[in-house]
């Protein structure tokens, strides 16, 4: 009986793992172990087996490759895969190794150590540990995590909530989904630590509609954790529930998410009060990104000092990038903050797809700024990006090649923002629609130079006056496109 490891997450399945499993199911002599994925999606479906010399991997496997694998021929040692070797896997250390729903494996690979540590510590000590780690939220706003926890801890209330933001709306990002499908106990552990720190008795995982497998895995994991007594702490049981989202981009914004959780339209609410003071049902609530929670457990297990030893001055620890677009090697990359964008693309992207040349890179999802080739020297950390008027967002990186029509791309962004604006505030509601109209006018050859000025003006108003970061960021992709590729726009205007 040969044990073969085959990832079972959505991306790998789509890349062919599902088909392999189906075909090989009948085969005797092999035992298929369904694991999480390593995140090297250009290699999927990737099959691994233990060999005397260590884990070996076969790439882009088809059903017919089985004899070769069984023969142990043509494999690559996993720790020699360049894409993976260059990474510093912290949160994603066990990916590709363990089975998502095996609590024993999770424990065997270092899981639950953070929770155990937390349970011997006072809530204040937990928050102090997080403060020392200098962890900032991974959902986009990069707010210091300890500070939010502290506010929620200190706000008196009869109930408090922990909410994991699993709405992962940025196109081309999937690290949250990978955590939920691949190591759900990690998320649960992080939420339990947070609940203990702030004194919450109920938790929700707000999972986007497009992630049914993640929701399914999480529910199963919650049940297992409950059966194992993990949700029980100091005489309290954390109620933990998966809630399937309402399916819009803005609902990922924390106040909109809480509205949606309360059964209303997912529309942004003005802050203050911040959720940490008055969130779900008006009670102190920590809303954090899945990745944030997933990082917390390791910090508690290995210490804040250790975590903060990685990264740059004000961006500590590791950053999780998801590289996509016209590169050879799309996939998930976890490295310490501090590399430049060019380096990251070079080391992991593996160059451009055959026949294409790099034209622009967008970082941080559909609201992120565009970088032309000349600006790729920027350091990957919150400060450098903030200074450049850009965002790291959720770590999504999309590479565009030389054939990209920048006017069409800009219009495409405005179509997105006009459609996804929650419509609550005037600047974003009106501005996103009017931007689209202006760009369409330009595309149709009816635009003037004044229209470009109008776009800039309108963008300024959106930036200054919008209620949330959606409207505040919406002009950036368009305006950076005009800034760096202005010629393409001017060519079309009279």
């Amino acid at each position: 009986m040969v044990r073969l490891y085959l990832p079972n997450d959505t991306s790998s399945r789509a890349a062919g793992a599902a088909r392999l499993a189906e075909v090989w199911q009948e085969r005797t002599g092999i035992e298929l172990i369904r694991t999480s994925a390593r995140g090297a999606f250009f290699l999927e479906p990737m099959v691994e087996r233990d060999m005397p010399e260590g884990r070996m991997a076969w790439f882009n496997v088809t059903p017919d490759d089985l004899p070769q694998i069984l023969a142990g021929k043509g494999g690559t040692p996993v720790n020699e895969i360049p894409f993976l070797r260059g990474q510093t896997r912290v949160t994603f250390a066990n990916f590709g190794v363990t089975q998502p729903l095996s609590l024993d494996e999770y424990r065997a690979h270092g899981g639950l150590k953070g929770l155990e540590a937390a349970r011997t510590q006072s809530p204040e000590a937990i928050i102090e540990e997080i403060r020392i780690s200098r962890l900032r939220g991974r959902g986009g706003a990069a707010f210091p995590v300890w500070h939010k926890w502290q506010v929620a801890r200190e706000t008196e209330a009869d109930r408090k909530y922990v909410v994991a933001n699993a709405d992962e709306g940025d196109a081309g990002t999937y690290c949250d989904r990978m955590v939920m499908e691949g190591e759900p106990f990690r998320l649960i552990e992080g939420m339990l630590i947070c609940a203990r720190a702030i004194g919450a008795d109920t938790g929700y995982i707000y999972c986007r509609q497009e992630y049914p497998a993640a929701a399914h895995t999480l529910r199963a994991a919650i049940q297992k954790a409950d059966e194992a007594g993990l949700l029980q702490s100091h005489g309290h049981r954390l109620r933990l529930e998966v809630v399937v989202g309402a399916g819009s981009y803005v609902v990922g914004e924390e106040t909109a998410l809480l509205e949606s959780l309360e059964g209303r339209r997912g529309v942004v609410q003005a802050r203050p009060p911040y959720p940490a003071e008055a969130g779900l049902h008006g009670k102190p609530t920590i809303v954090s990104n899945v990745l944030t929670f997933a990082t917390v457990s390791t910090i508690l297990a290995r210490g804040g000092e250790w975590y903060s030893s990685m990264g740059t001055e004000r961006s500590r620890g590791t950053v999780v990038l998801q590289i996509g677009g016209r590169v050879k090697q799309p996939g998930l990359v976890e490295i310490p903050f501090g590399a430049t964008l060019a380096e990251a693309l070079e080391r992991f992207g593996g160059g451009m797809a055959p026949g294409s040349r790099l034209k622009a890179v967008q970082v941080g999802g559909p609201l992120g700024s565009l970088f032309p080739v000349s600006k790729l020297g920027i350091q990957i950390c919150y400060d450098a990006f903030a200074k450049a008027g850009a965002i790291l967002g959720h770590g999504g990186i999309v590479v565009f090649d030389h054939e990209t029509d920048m006017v069409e791309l800009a219009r495409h962004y405005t179509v997105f923002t006009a459609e996804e604006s929650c419509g609550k505030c005037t600047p974003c509601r009106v501005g996103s629609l009017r931007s689209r109209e202006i760009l369409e006018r330009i595309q149709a050859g009816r635009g003037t130079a004044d229209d470009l000025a109008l776009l800039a003006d309108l963008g300024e108003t959106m930036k200054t006056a919008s209620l949330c970061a959606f409207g505040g960021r919406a002009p950036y992709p368009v305006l950076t496109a005009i800034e760096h590729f202005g010629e393409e726009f001017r060519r079309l205007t009279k």
Partner: protein
Amino acid sequence: MATTAVETVRLTIDGVPVTVPKGTLVIEAARQTGVMIPHFCYHPKLKWDANCRMCLVEIEKMPKLQTSCSTPVAEGMVVRTATAVVNEAHKSVLEFILANHPLDCPVCDQGGRCDLQDFSHEYTPTTSRFIEVKRVFEKEYFSPLIETQMNRCVQCLRCVRYCDEVMDVKALAPVGRGTMTEIKHFTHHELDCEFCGGCVQICPVGAFTSRLSMYEFRPWMLKRADTICTYCGDGCQITIQTKENELIEVMSAHGAGRNNGDLCARGFFGYHATTHPDRLQHPLIRRNGQLIQTTWEEALEHVAETFTRLKLQHGPAAFGGLIASRCTNEDLYVFQKFMRLAIGSNRIDSSARYGHINGVRALRRVQGTHRWTVTFEDIVSADALLLVGTSLTETNPITGLKVKEAVKKQGAILLTIESLVPAVGTISNITNLATHHVSAHPEQFGNIVLGLIKAVIEEGLVDQALAQRATSYVQAISEAVRACPWPVIENATGATSSTLKETARTFARAARTIILVGQGVLRAPGGYGIVMNLLDLLLLTGKHDQPGCGLAPLAEENNDQGAVEMGTVAEFLPGPSDLNDRPARERIAGLWKEELPQGAGSTLIKMLEEARTGKIKAMLIVGENPVGSLPTGARAKEALEQLEFLVCQELFLTETAALAHVVLPACSYAEKDGTVTNTEGHVQQVRQAIEPIGESRPDWQILSALSGLLGYPLEYGESREILKEIRSLIPGYGLLGPAPTPPRPDQTVVDRYLREGYTEDLASRYSLAGEGQAERGSRKEGSFALVVGQTLFHSGKLSTRAKGLLQIQAAGFLGLNPANAQEIGVTEGDRVRISNEQGEMTTTVKLLDRVPEGLALFPEHFAEDRLTDQRR
């Protein structure tokens, strides 16, 4: 709760230093320095939403411009509202808003009072650089009374938030995304809600408008009169707008009156009742059995002659007088003076008799006040509110809003004892907000109160100080409730002892508690006793004399309270003073320069009986319609037909007026000046908005004219002179301030009550009502206990002449629980015949989740189905 000094914060706005209470929003602080920051979505009544982004200001040390409507002040804050950056932001946001606005100002009702128009004049240009077409919404039929013009909507959501936060109706919602968001309602056909008009009033542009007044006017052409709505005891301030003597619309400004600008359907849409074409225009006199038109001279002379003749023949005691407590204090006062002096009879009563008098009598007896010891403000800041038999939203909608505010915004605990059950519907349901609700048949309210008192005794919730001060009182009540065993209470009321104990504990634990008693108790047989027992509840729990605590009987009619205070009830002289209170009689006689008549008063019911037996020969009835209002069992028609002479002063030819020998056309509240006293005891000014309809005259003028002909001239040039006279009798009556100053319980009266006063009727008050009757739930199949109550859309019978209200509700209905309806095989809209011992009639079924099983709800306004025919 100790009253601590309000913490304040100092800041500067455009260089001007201001000090404001902590928590004040920058936009409000600016208003105090005279700076109006432009805004659309902000409204002081609503929780800020910060969606329009119009109100941006610069605040030192903050990186971006901030919305002043959502930023609370902070110590040392430096705000700038008029820098170039701020102006540019205002201009840009306004340009965005105008980008979607049709600019159909010339045909918009809001024209002239539109925030958008106002602000865009400030920031020229008024056009937008966006040349694409404006959004166009398909026009949809919204409702018979409220019309929407979504193209004009600036999506500030004030309407939606108002309907939710203030009204608790939640009828409106934004539907659709982005710019194409429209404000819609939840029902599939047309808007079905409380029709409070709040959304129309609060819309900053003309996107929500009233159909009653649409396109008829431009705001600046209208004449305005600030007056008081007469539909219920809450006494809302309204502004009646007229054009060439025609009523155009009613509104109520934010901050105005005790209602703070909020209204209900009756106030907002009910104003056409006064100009209904059926209004009596001329005096009528009976000739050969027919009422025919006559002149004032002839009518008045005929009345005076006949009165004189009958007085000579039968003496003054053969006269009875009845007046509606919808009249002004001035009308009421002159009426009783007329009856007492010009006629010489104490047989006087008013519609306060139906219920309100029971509350006042109990208050007088226990604590020596005839008014509430609390105000609306106290309701809002109460810790716990106990509602007993109120149907609050339907009868006193604005008191209802105060309760909602207390619960929703201030976190008060609400305890309700009502016949309806919590259920979401198109009309807000106060029991939905209750933490403890006891649903019971109205006949059981008294037993539940007994249960609460029993719980207070058994749970050791009696106030220690009281136990020492009034040992025998506490003892007597303890013994009395001991004789009411729990199983009997539980069986009769359907409420468990644990529920009642929990309710009692919650009530006793709260510091500021107010009991609101409604018509369900006040009008019920034994209602007076229940109010007495509720006062015992306050005394026993030690809350009676505490600040912010008290018992508040809810007046149903707009001037129930005034009717009592003006002495137009059988037992009182003006003051009110007891009819046989010697010093009071002397004082009044001194002022009137005339002796007061001797002899007892007669209540309405007694008068009817005296009419039937021939003891009373003549009656003067002002604005009251006993034939239409009293249950058939009272045999009012038969009684009045016995009279030798009946005179009515009326707006309409009511069932009662139709029996009269002379009918004198009276002015409605819209045509006269005067004062009315609301349920809190706040005296407010009624102001004339239109010229009298036809030849109608104010009631007091008619009485004044008659008195002259009778030889006892009661002469007043204008209503203000009457108020002056009232003030000389009741010092300070109607200090017309913004809020009433409630009296405190008179401790000597309380002491007397606790010493011995309680004994006289303790036994009867503390015995279970209906004991030994058939068990609960054992109703005959297909039979229901009928609860006759008010609906939100009508008030008495007057409102059934208001075209707006008829469009919402044109006919009576029978409200049934859906489960019951299914049992008996009927459904929404079915015509059913209902019958009881008193008669039968046909009506339409309405399924209502809030009606508990076994009850049937029937509104009291449409006793005759004639109305349904009149409709089309």
